[in-house]
């Protein structure tokens, strides 16, 4: 359970007589850095053969265009030494594979070769318990007046880490949450999602992930600094660039951002009644 989230929510809400104003702030732009977005997800009930990895770079903070990276070599090797090649859909920065074979508990290694430098990362595929049910409340949320959905799942008696993505069709960017079972081991757990903009007929795409502890730690930092989630709170720690699990084997200081994760997921669509 992540109470930090609730605390910061309250502290922000406290600014009852506060006012927000969009202002111009000049920012420096650092030299572009490679970003590897390699989240391999095996949806329950599918073969998991089709997978996608996106390569891009960092750019000016106010820019509306994210530069894509073409011409890299991308592959994933399984513990059984099976090699899956990801080939680029020309000039999109998207690298796809159609014959990937996911195995729970198997260790995989990602290799990206770009501009003569080799980047690698290793992860073990995490399983997840299925979504048991989805419930809806019409007097939920922070104000007690919003639609709220609750997604129930059973935690297993072991150390588990979970992530969820809620993507309502009225949003531009998805909303992620993470949780662990430190205080709820072996219990029926739930995800909650509410927003004052939800209305009858809003469709919400729900993805429920089993994640590794290192991916949990990574996403914990990513969620807290993501500008899609409204940026940091006024009380945040001095933010820092979040390092993932990808290592540049050629030049260790020219590190890449992003993460190589590999998870089993359960997916549902829910329409607000």
């Amino acid at each position: 359970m992540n109470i930090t989230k609730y605390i910061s929510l309250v502290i922000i809400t406290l600014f009852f007589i506060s006012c927000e104003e969009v202002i111009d702030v000049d920012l420096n732009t650092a030299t572009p850095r490679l970003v590897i977005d390699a989240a391999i997800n095996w949806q329950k009930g599918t073969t998991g053969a089709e997978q996608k990895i996106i390569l891009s770079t960092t750019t000016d903070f106010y820019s509306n265009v994210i530069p894509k990276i073409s011409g890299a070599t991308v592959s994933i090797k399984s513990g059984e030494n099976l090699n899956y090649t990801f080939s680029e859909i020309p000039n999109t920065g998207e690298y796809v594979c159609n014959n990937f074979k996911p195995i729970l508990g198997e260790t995989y290694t990602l290799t990206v070769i770009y501009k003569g430098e080799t980047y690698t990362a290793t992860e073990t595929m995490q399983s997840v318990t299925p979504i048991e049910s989805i419930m809806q409340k019409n007097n939920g949320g922070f104000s007690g007046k919003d639609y709220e959905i609750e997604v129930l799942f059973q935690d297993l008696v072991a150390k588990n880490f979970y992530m969820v993505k809620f993507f309502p069709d009225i949003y531009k960017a998805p909303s992620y949450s993470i949780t662990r079972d430190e205080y709820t081991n072996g219990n029926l757990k739930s995800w909650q999602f509410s927003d004052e903009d939800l209305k009858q007929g809003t469709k919400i795409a729900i993805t429920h992930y089993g994640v590794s502890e290192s991916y949990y730690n990574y996403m914990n930092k990513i969620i807290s600094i993501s500008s899609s989630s409204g940026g940091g709170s006024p009380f945040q720690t001095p933010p820092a660039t979040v390092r993932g699990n990808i290592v540049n084997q050629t030049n260790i200081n020219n590190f890449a951002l992003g993460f190589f994760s590999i998870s089993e997921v359960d997916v549902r669509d829910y329409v607000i009644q």
Partner: protein
Amino acid sequence: MNSNKIVYFFLFFLTTLSTFSQENIDSAKQKYTISGTISDSSNNETLIGVNVSILELKTGVTTNEYGFYSITLPKGNYTLQIAYLGFQTIEKKIELSQNTKNNFKLQSAEQQLREVVVSSNKKSTNIKTPEMSVNKLSMATVKKMPVVLGEADILKSILLLPGVTSAGEGQSGFNVRGGGADQNLVLLDEATIFNSSHVFGFFSVFNPDSIKDLKLYKGGIPARYGGRASSVLDIYQKEGNSNSFHMNGGVGLISSRLLAEGPIVKDKGSFIVAARTSYAHLFLKLSDNENSASFYDLNAKLNYKLNDNNSLYVSSYFGRDFFNISKEFENTYGNSTFNLRWNHLFSERLFSNFSAIFSDYYYGLTLSSVGFDWQSSIKNFNLKYDLKYYLNDKIKLDFGVSSIYYKFNPGTIKPIDENSSINFSQLDKKNAFEPSVYVEAEHQANPKLSFLYGLRFSMFYRLGASTVNLYQDNQAVTYNDQLKIYEKGVPIGTKTYGYNEVITSFSNLEPRFSTSYVLDEKASVKASYNRMVQYLQLVSNTASPTPLDIWTPSDQYIQPQIADQVAVGYFRNFKDDMYSMEIESFYKKVKNRIDYIDGADLIANNAIEQVILNGQLRAYGVEFMLRKNFGKLNGWIAYTLSNSEQQTPGRTPIESGINNGNWYKSGYHKLHNLAVTANYSWNPKWSFGGNFILQSGQPVTFPNGQYQYQGLVIPSYGGRNEDNLPLYHHLDLSATYVPKPDKRKGWQGEWVFSIYNIYNRKNAASISFRENQTSGSNEAVKLSIFGAVPSVSYNFKF
């Protein structure tokens, strides 16, 4: 634990004491002592820091925290002068041929004015004593300053002093000389206050009506204080009027207060009870949600004079804040203190005070939607014995012992009912014991040169019952050399300690020294050095404290903070003491300042050592203060130029450290800090006050790029705290109207009108960066809290 050190210290202590006692017997033949207490004639309230001077010898003393003074002189005829700010100065000729008790009651200057006897009303800087880096504020001064939301506020007023800055608007706590807010020891009648604000910093927990006096030590901290690295804010509550029964109070827009005081036995015992409460549903009612925020506090004090040599004091404080959002989120927190003190005079020259103090800080949180209940607390029990020995007119000796027992409950997590998915969980409770002894001498070597030298020996025992994690190579934080990041260490085992079994112990000698050299009648130079050791650490990753901040004792992984500070200063009074000028420069270095690894989760973390690294803090600067002490217009200008930086280097050459091991600006670095406060008495009915504050914006970290990951826009960053918020400034004005200024009996009222931030400056509390929901582009958003805030309150007494 080095027991030899302690033995030596006590030996030193005892020999010093016996040498002085020896001299005492020898000299007693020709010398006599004059002693007594000094109080306010109107209510018998004892007065702290009154100057008692022997005009013939150009020497003197000041009264202590209980209004007591003592001075030992050769037989002879003297003129005793008693002077105190706001009171009529008394001069008395005495023939000293035996030990004499002389109690004085001072008449307030207001009464004096009525009687058209205008004489000096001293509040010039005391240039002679070695005491430096100390600011004293009387409640009369505090009450004349305009403040936001219309209520006099101790914490807001100390922000106007040189070397003191606020973490930001609407944030609690204050920073002294570039130190953290956790490094301030805040004492209310000697009891430690862990959270000094109500409603997240909008009000201080100190009811202005029940406070008598306060002193802020920024440097040259006397040996009787210990336990925090940067400063001591020592606040004393009133004892209550022992002449007659009175009430006073105030009605404001946000809160109201009422105080009653009176004799229990006339001239022997008195009581004071004060209460303050905000109106429920503070501002949040304005929004259409069912939210509320409110607070209240109670102060009570009893004192009784058993006889000439013994007095008893009982005082207590209880305060609570409530915060409720849609009944989903309920939050309660606050301090409570209770203490019993016994003043005993062994002789005219040996004053003692025994204190038994209890203080508790409680934090409770209930989240109904997830069925979650959280409680945490810090309790401490303190026994103290302080003695003051007035050896002769040249030397005064302070010595004493103190022992504090702490009980920390970092968190109890409970399900609120059987439907909750939360399991019961208790974060490891922590106990600790902090004994200390000190001795200090104030010594006037010759008419020009005086010294204050002290030594404090502090010990700290981290006690069980606890189960402590063990780590490879004793390192609770590990470094991932491939990814260049710090990670939580994985315990390789645990060790269980029984109840009150010593887990780790520390001991430190804390030398204190200050000196003053009088250049001429008007000017002096002073210098000081102090070492302070702080055994408690505030676990907070924000620049300013929040109510949920967790304190943790030092242990085998978290070292105590050790601060060394030197300061030099030049002090001058001019134009017949109409003006005072103080210039001070300081350098402070704090070892073992904690820092957090990136992404550290601090709340409900049962192994906090896994996210903490020990670094260091340094701060240096120059403070300047020019004060007009009396007249129709009085006030001061204070300016501070200072630097405050932190560094957490790697523990080995391979490690990167935090911010690549480079020095970076601390969250409370303020390069420039200017404060002007003035008060003008136009006529007996109207007086006006004004404050102007200007300080550099807080250091912050802005992004230097962005990227996309899993559909999210993620900012990237360069070095830590390399950017700044915009300049912070505001001007506040107030007017006080007393309809019947001549009325001295019965109902007396006054109206206070004030405007905070009169030109409606939108100071930035923060600048955050986000993706605009409609355009999808990134933008910078400034959050400001207060625009112009007008307020009115009515105060009364009878």
